Structure formats: C-alpha cells, structure tokens
C-alpha cells in the first residue's frame, strides 16, 4: 500500500489494518515520523510540498526494491503533504517479514531512500516566517550504505 495524501492518518490504525491482513508473518516494523518542535527551535508548523505523480512512481519503485531485497511479505508507505502542526504524523513505513532482522532492515532501507529520493520538500513555519529545510549530508550517507 502506498498513500500520498494531505489527509491526517492515525499511526495505530494504519498498523492495525496492515497487520490484520497478514496473519502469516512473524515480525512487523513500523516507523512513524512526526512534526517536531523543540524549545531551542520552536516551529508552529511544517509545510510539505510534493510532486504527487513522481512521488507515487518513485515510492512504488523503492517499495518493490525493498520487498525483493529483504524478502518482505509486505511493505506500506504513507506520506502526507500540506500544512502539519507539531505532534502530527508526517509519514509511516511498515514492513512485514518472517523474521525480525529483515523487517528492521527493510524499514531502514525504505526510510533512507525516501529521505533522499521521494519528491517532498519541507518548509518550517516560525514567528520569523517560513524557511526551506536544508537537505542533510547525513541522509545521503545513510542511503549510500545500501549500495
């Protein structure tokens, strides 16, 4: 399952539905990314821009690569765009496998690729206005470990 949407989602409900469909798996790993506001760097919102058609295509390709590479029973990716406030889930990745290491590795692989290859761009909204979030070199490095 791949969902690219501006609508909010409930991480727990997604996990519940994902697992209910697969009574034969032994291990499930779920990653949820949330909007974060800290005392040092308070933000009022995160505004995500997206190129939806490209996101659908690239995420489908990343998902297929993960399923093949780690023999996943299933994998699902949900990613929001639009304006989100602190605490709101931005995205969720879920993997199902026979054993735990494949489920963990599959989820990390998906996350590392999504960070650098999924066409989303974040803007932080603060009292001073909005500013584009800069891409992190660490994200490129994380992706490189799978090549």
């Amino acid at each position, binding site marked *: 399952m791949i969902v690219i949407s501006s609508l909010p989602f409930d991480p727990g409900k997604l996990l519940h539905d994902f697992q209910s469909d697969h009574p034969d798996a032994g291990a499930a790993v779920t990653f949820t*990314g949330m909007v974060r506001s800290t005392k040092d760097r308070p933000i009022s919102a995160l505004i*995500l*821009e*997206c*190129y939806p*058609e*490209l996101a*659908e*295509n*690239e995420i489908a390709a990343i998902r297929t690569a993960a399923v093949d590479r780690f023999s996943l029973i299933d994998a699902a990716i949900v*990613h929001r765009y639009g304006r989100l406030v602190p605490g709101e889930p*931005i*995205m969720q990745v879920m993997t199902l496998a026979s054993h735990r290491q494949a489920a963990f590795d599959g989820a990390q692989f998906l*996350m590392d690729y*999504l*960070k*650098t*290859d*999924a*066409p*989303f*761009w*974040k803007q932080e909204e603060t009292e001073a206005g909005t500013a*584009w*979030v*800069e*891409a*992190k070199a660490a*994200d490129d490095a994380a992706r490189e470990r799978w090549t």
Partner: protein
Amino acid sequence: MKVLYFAWLRERLNRASDDINLPDDITTLTELVAWLRANDEALDLAMDNPKQFKLSRNARIVSWDTAITDDDTIAILPPMTGG
C-alpha cells in the same frame, strides 16, 4: 514541452512551470538545462550548483544524459527533504 519547478526553485523563479518549444538541437536533459539557464538569469543563478538537482522526465527520476522530446514533461528538483 512542459518544465516544472519545485520548492525554493519555484519560489526563486516566481513560477511553477514553463511551456517551451524545444529547439531541434536540444536532445538531452543536460542540453536542456544549459539552454534554459542561458535564457533565464534567475534560473542560471538558482542552479549555480547544478549537481544537487535531480531531474525527472514524465514523472520518473532519470539521469542528466537522458534523451528528451518536445512531448515530455520535465521537472527540476531541488534536494529532497521528505521522510
């Protein structure tokens, strides 16, 4: 040909897309970007570090040496910050 701009590139250009007539001698994405930059100072400045951009053709990310035609939809993509 349609050319799409996203995120801060879109902001710097003050537009989300261009409709262009592709000259016959422009056959790859590398050539297209060079031609676009030569014709638009704002784009030229915004892309002064061209390696950081990814390019897509018809909603698939492709390499800069990909061949293109006038029917394609191209996008110029600043470094992504999703996830």
